């Protein structure tokens, strides 16, 4: 295993690339072969990423200096100090696993949904996979930026070639929005880079070194704005969200799954990994603004979702609302809130990913996404109805399912910070609204009379389709019933970030609360 485990991150990241090149050399007439290569590559990609969690605490793979796991470091562009530097901590480990899993599910779900230009489709999906995994692993800002941009191109084609009627508009809108954010982010990265050089005399894009910098306030302010534009567009946060419904609605099912499941997480991940620890003062300063934007996203996203006539765009707007919750937890910057925010990223990937798959299943059968075209589906499609119910409940935060844990932790974590209680209170309304639009959707689509002739002929899910949901359902219950399995990996990195933002004094205050005046302090006397 020596050739494998120490460089496991390379294997996980570049296995899809191998599949990509393999597919390029297969003649395009051999469609089944292309599908098999893509499925096997992504399945293998998921399997070889499992050791990331299983051996996570193996001391052999822990980098002593930084606490990161499976670190690989090599000079890449020595003349400007860029390194090929990858490694994972708890946060990126969970997101990497989510990516490999959803990547496999997306490929599997496309088996019969994609009928034209199959070779290109799978090639782009695999290329996309490389970019996404790379983003979560990079510990060098330059490398991060390269991966971040690389994945725009395949996504553009996935939407633009295999999408719905307005695909070209949606695809270029997605590309331009994201690019606008990331170019400004590049300027911010360069400012950090040159500041670091002026302090330490070393040219380096090392993210972990940058986290140690105490940046002057003015610079933090500007860099935060630059990063904010880059990440907020990706999340997307409120004023920048307009690309999302277009992209989601027009994208093919697998594209929507990846988009909702992974791509949006890159924005939230960017805030967690870069904005908070590198720019703690600016984070605190911008906190009220960010909170307000999150709340607008939560409530506005939910309200807009409620009035959608298109099933898929309803789920898309629900993403805006859910991502608002994630960001709320992240910017609360308390241990519980931040953990909740990160867990909610995973949860959203699971439940919204599944919901997009579910929409895709019926779309493949009926070629319409209008909610009014459906009704009474539960009569003919019991398995479908059951899975849809589980994922609906997961999405609205039903206890015993994953969504509840995430939302609860976010609200608790936000509430724990006295100055943020009001925000937490308003955010609760988002949960109520969420239940409203999701259950209403369920009612309109699944219950009632089965009065449309076309719907009567619809077949229930086949075995391959069920297989795409099995891992998601298991995870939904697992996180809902025993989240500790996953949360334990978040303790250490989250505490580090909170310490950066709120200072060491925060933990001391939490552990040893100041007793109220006049209280008798009991001492342990034997």
């Amino acid at each position: 295993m020596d050739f494998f485990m120490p460089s496991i991150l390379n294997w996980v990241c570049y296995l899809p690339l191998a599949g990509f090149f393999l597919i390029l050399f297969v003649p395009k007439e051999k469609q089944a072969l292309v599908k098999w290569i893509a499925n096997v590559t992504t399945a293998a990609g998921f399997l070889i990423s499992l050791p990331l969690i299983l051996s996570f605490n193996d001391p052999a793979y822990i980098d002593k200096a930084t606490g990161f796991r499976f670190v690989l470091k090599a000079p890449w562009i020595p003349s400007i100090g860029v390194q090929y530097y990858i490694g994972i901590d708890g946060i990126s480990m969970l997101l990497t696993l989510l990516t490999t899993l959803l990547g496999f599910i997306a490929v599997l779900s496309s088996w019969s949904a994609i009928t034209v230009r199959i070779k290109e489709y799978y090639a782009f999906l695999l290329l996309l996979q490389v970019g996404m995994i790379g983003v979560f692993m990079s510990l060098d800002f330059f490398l991060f930026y390269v991966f971040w941009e690389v994945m725009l191109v395949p996504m553009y084609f996935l939407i633009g070639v295999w999408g719905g009627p307005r695909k070209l508009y949606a695809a270029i809108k997605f590309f331009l929005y994201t690019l606008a954010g990331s170019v400004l982010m590049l300027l911010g990265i360069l400012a950090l880079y040159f500041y670091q050089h002026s302090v330490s005399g070393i040219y380096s894009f090392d993210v972990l070194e940058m986290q140690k910098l105490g940046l002057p306030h003015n610079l933090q302010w500007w860099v935060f704005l630059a990063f904010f534009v880059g990440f907020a567009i990706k999340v997307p946060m409120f004023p920048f969200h307009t690309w999302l419904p277009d992209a989601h609605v027009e994208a093919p099912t697998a594209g929507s799954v990846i988009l909702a499941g992974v791509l949006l997480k890159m924005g939230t991940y960017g805030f967690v990994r870069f904005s908070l620890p590198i720019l703690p003062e600016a984070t605190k300063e911008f906190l009220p603004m960010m909170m307000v934007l999150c709340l607008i996203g939560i409530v506005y996203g939910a309200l807009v979702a409620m009035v959608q006539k298109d099933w898929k765009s309803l789920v898309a707007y629900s993403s805006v609302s859910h991502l608002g919750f994630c960001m709320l937890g992240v910017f609360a910057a308390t241990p519980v809130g931040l953990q909740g925010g990160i867990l909610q990223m995973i949860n959203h990937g699971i439940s919204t990913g599944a919901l997009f798959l579910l929409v895709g299943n019926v779309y493949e059968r009926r070629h319409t996404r209008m909610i009014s075209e459906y009704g009474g589906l539960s009569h003919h499609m019991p398995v479908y109805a059951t899975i849809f119910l589980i994922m609906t409940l997961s999405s609205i935060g039903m206890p015993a399912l994953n969504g509840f844990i995430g939302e609860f932790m976010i609200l608790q974590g936000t509430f724990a910070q006295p100055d943020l209680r009001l925000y937490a209170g308003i955010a609760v309304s988002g949960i109520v609204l969420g239940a409203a639009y999701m259950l209403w959707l369920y009612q309109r689509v699944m219950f009632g009379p089965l009065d449309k002739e076309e719907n009567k002929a619809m077949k229930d899910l086949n075995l391959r389709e069920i297989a795409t949901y099995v891992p998601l359902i298991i995870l939904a219950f697992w996180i809902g019933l025993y989240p500790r399995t996953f949360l334990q990996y978040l303790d250490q990195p989250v505490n580090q970030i909170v310490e950066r933002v709120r200072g060491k004094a925060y933990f001391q205050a939490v552990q040893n609360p100041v007793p109220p005046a006049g209280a008798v302090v009991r001492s342990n006397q034997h």
Partner: protein
Amino acid sequence: METTGAGIPGPMDLIPRHYFFYTNAMNEPFPLKTVADTLAYFGQNMGALGPELQLLLWALIGCMILEVLLPDQSKRLTGYAALGGIAFASFHLYKIYVNGFLGVFFNETTVIDPFSIFFKALFLAAALLTVLLSLRFMEIENEQSGEYYALILLATIGMMVMVSAIDLLTIYIGLELMAMSFYILVGYLRRNRLSNEASLKIFLLGAFASGILLYGFSLLYGLTGSTQLSVLARQLAAAPAQNREMIFLAVVLVIVGLGFKIAAVPFHMWAPDAYQGAPTPITAFLSVGSKAAAFTVMLRLFLGSFVSVKGWFLVLGVVALMTFVVGNLAALLQTNVKRLLAYSSISHAAYILLGLLAGREFGGIAASSGYLLIYTFMNFGAFAVLILMRRKGIPGDQIADFNGLIFRHPVIASLMLIFLLSLAGIPPTAGFIAKYMVFAAIIKAYMAQPSAMLLTLAIAGAVAAVVALYYYFLIVKAMFTGESQAEDLPALSFSPGVTAAIVITAGMTMWVGIFPDTIMRMAAYAASNWGAW
């Protein structure tokens, strides 16, 4: 490196160490009393002009004489003669580089320094690609002839003289040699009305711009009493206060004259028409070589001789901003790929100006040089694909001609995608490295000396990158999602020359994008020992 005062180049201190052809070179002004002395003097200095002389030799003997001797159907051989000239010139240049044959020659009018070696290599690469692209193209156009290749080589000589020149008159001679060659080359398709129009336009406006440039030079000479750049720098720094306005006027005239050559707004009017009408290989050569040559002169003048002059920074900054806005917005509306690439070339000039504006201390020279080298490859790549599209009876230069290219020629469409992504600056292609270098220079300059202009330029550059993506993707959209045209289209005009050019450019675009260290070192080399003459 010896300097007199802040940032002003001092007297030369680069001593020639090895000699390539001629064993006795002089550094001091040489009293030329007799014919024998004169001959000896030139002999001793000619080694510095080795590459240029090779090109001249092959242009005159190889191309022109072969043209007379060869029958019509084998005129293509003159193109091979041009390739031979480029090969020998490259060999000379390589020897100069390896032997460290650096120094000042011809009575301090010509310099061989890392900067000029870097750009001479760039010009030779551009000339090589131009000839490779022309071999089949001119046959399709029925204009295959020896003068064409000879003119390409002469234009290259002009560019090489420009980059080596450290004297206003030498600069002007190089510039005119290059410009004259281009006036003819642009109009080389005699039977094509667009080509005729292009030639007339570039000639009239070009002559006008040359006149303005010369006027600026003459004012500078009048103010300082010298045409040498190093003397100019010292004299301008010590100029009395009442001359400031006149100096500024001279510098502005120089900006106008050179701004025309780099096609910066508002001196860009000729570019779209000239680019569209010219034979496509010449369009590529014009947009890369001519631009790079003019930029070398700008870098030498503004970061060398004019450092002490106040005010040009603001003027050039505004020019760069206008170039970003006009170049990008106009490109959005184009339906002709050659015109689109013309406007894209205008907006690339603005990025290269960013490097110049960042200044020498902040890596601006390396950034601009690296950008120009990368631009050479990616731009020639895009034009090479465009030339493939030119078939008998089909111009193939409308965006609609690219519709559904992926179905008929998946490899070519994918390579075009790489070139366009690179032009748009998306990693992991070379174009991103180019953008990175100019952004790094400008941010570094801003961090050291914050100014509203630098910040505005950086943000304008970022926004321009987004707009640019849109129009490059008009072509991508056509290639990948457009309806395929009728089945009976003639095949693309593949030829060994074009294939070689595409392989070279695509290889460089990807290689530089993934392993940029070499190109960054080369750019740093170009900026090393800069202005030490």
